[in-house]
């Protein structure tokens, strides 16, 4: 395990350093481009944009301190982008949470986005809302909010459990344009079916590097692609070795 982690770290560090010297091209992510389109739609309709990182998957619920923490933080990097575009375009942003520890973090993050666009007077702290730390109370709260505020765009980036379908369907009923992203595979089919654009699996984490003004984090994407390629080669070699009767598993186990 240590060797695997070290190889992975080496790949990342090597490409991060390389990215400082030359720009690494990254393919366009349609869901990220759709966020700006969704915010533009909200401005035209004069209705708010809603963003949520979700409750957390059933097995990982527990906020930033749990194993869904990375998904929540990756979702927060997308919130930083959403807040910046909302501030620039003059759209009202409502951010809702099931994890109260994210509220002060989001508050700072959204305020900073308005400050960087010189629109601090348009920042509404009451739009950063802790709904409930209980899954179904959280989703019920959002259903009510969608109907009251008639949201124009719903952006869901984080870690989701069973509430994903309730939230997405609730937003659909309210007539919202939807963009969602998650790394959990249990709710991906649901959000893929209901939402207009979806960030699937690794795209969700790549979005943070994609949105960065600094090209250096894009090096990490190249690093993880190289590691993935190695993993695919290793899987093929391992499969052939096992078919030929050479039990490679005994050599890997430590």
């Amino acid at each position: 395990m240590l060797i695997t982690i070290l190889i992975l770290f080496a790949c990342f560090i090597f490409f991060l350093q390389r990215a400082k010297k030359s720009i690494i091209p990254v393919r366009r992510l349609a869901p990220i481009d759709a966020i700006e389109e969704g915010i533009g739609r909200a401005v035209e309709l004069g209705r708010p944009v809603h963003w949520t990182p979700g409750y957390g998957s059933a097995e990982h619920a527990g906020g930033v301190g749990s194993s869904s923490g990375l998904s929540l933080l990756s979702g927060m990097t997308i919130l930083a982008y959403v807040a910046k575009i909302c501030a620039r375009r003059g759209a009202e942003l409502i951010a809702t949470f099931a994890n109260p520890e994210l509220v002060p973090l989001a508050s700072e993050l959204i305020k900073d986005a308005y400050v960087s666009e010189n629109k601090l007077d348009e920042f509404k702290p009451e739009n950063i809302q802790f709904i409930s730390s209980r899954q179904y109370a959280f989703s019920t709260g959002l259903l009510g909010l969608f109907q009251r505020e008639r949201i124009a765009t719903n952006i869901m980036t984080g870690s989701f459990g069973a509430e994903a379908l309730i939230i997405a369907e609730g937003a659909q009923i309210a007539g919202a344009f939807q963009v969602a992203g998650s790394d959990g595979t249990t709710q991906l089919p649901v959000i893929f079916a209901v939402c207009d654009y979806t960030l699937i699996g690794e795209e969700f984490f790549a979005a943070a590097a994609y949105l960065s003004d600094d090209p250096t984090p894009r090096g990490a994407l190249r690093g993880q692609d190289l590691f993935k390629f190695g993993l695919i080669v290793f899987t093929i070699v391992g499969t052939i070795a096992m078919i030929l009767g050479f039990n490679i598993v005994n050599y890997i186990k430590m």
Partner: protein
Amino acid sequence: MSLIRRDLPVWIAFLVGVIILADYVFTFPGLQVASTTLTNWAVIVTAFSFGIGALNIIQRQSKIIIRRDKYWIYSVVLIIILFGTLGIGLVGSINHPYYKILFDNVMAPLNVTMSSMLAFFLASAAFRVFRAKNFESILLLIAAVFVMLQNAPIGELIWPGLPVIGDFFVTGFAAGGNRGIQIGAAIASIGFGVRILIGQEKRWFGRTE
């Protein structure tokens, strides 16, 4: 300002991340103590954050009541229930009969109601998705029909081969695709973690310039 806003969070994230990660790999007793202590701190910080959550609700709902916004009466109900439940829990305990009445007769039925609503949301989502609009949606519809007939007893009655085809969709295409996404997401999450550890990813805590 730069030290507190930009560098300090990065260094704290780096130190904590390295200690927790090293505890997975090495077995030094000191490291284990440090890792357990940090994990306990995370639990304590999370517990305290519920206070922030309650304050956020009280502030927001109070403003709605003072401004007499639309549906302000619901905010009054929310505040009364919030303080009522808190009061009963503090004066008695979570085993107090009134607290149990509130939980068993209000909270639990509402939870179950919302949980059962999932079936209706699923049906409405399925109705919209399973319309043959383009090539991809036709593929989705075909796969869905086979998987539904695999799970419904009538499938086997129509033709014994139907559940076999449905099972092939689940254990073949779906499981393969699922594992591919899981492996990709796992590697990407490590990459994101490394970027946070070495301070290349700072957008999650706000303005960095």
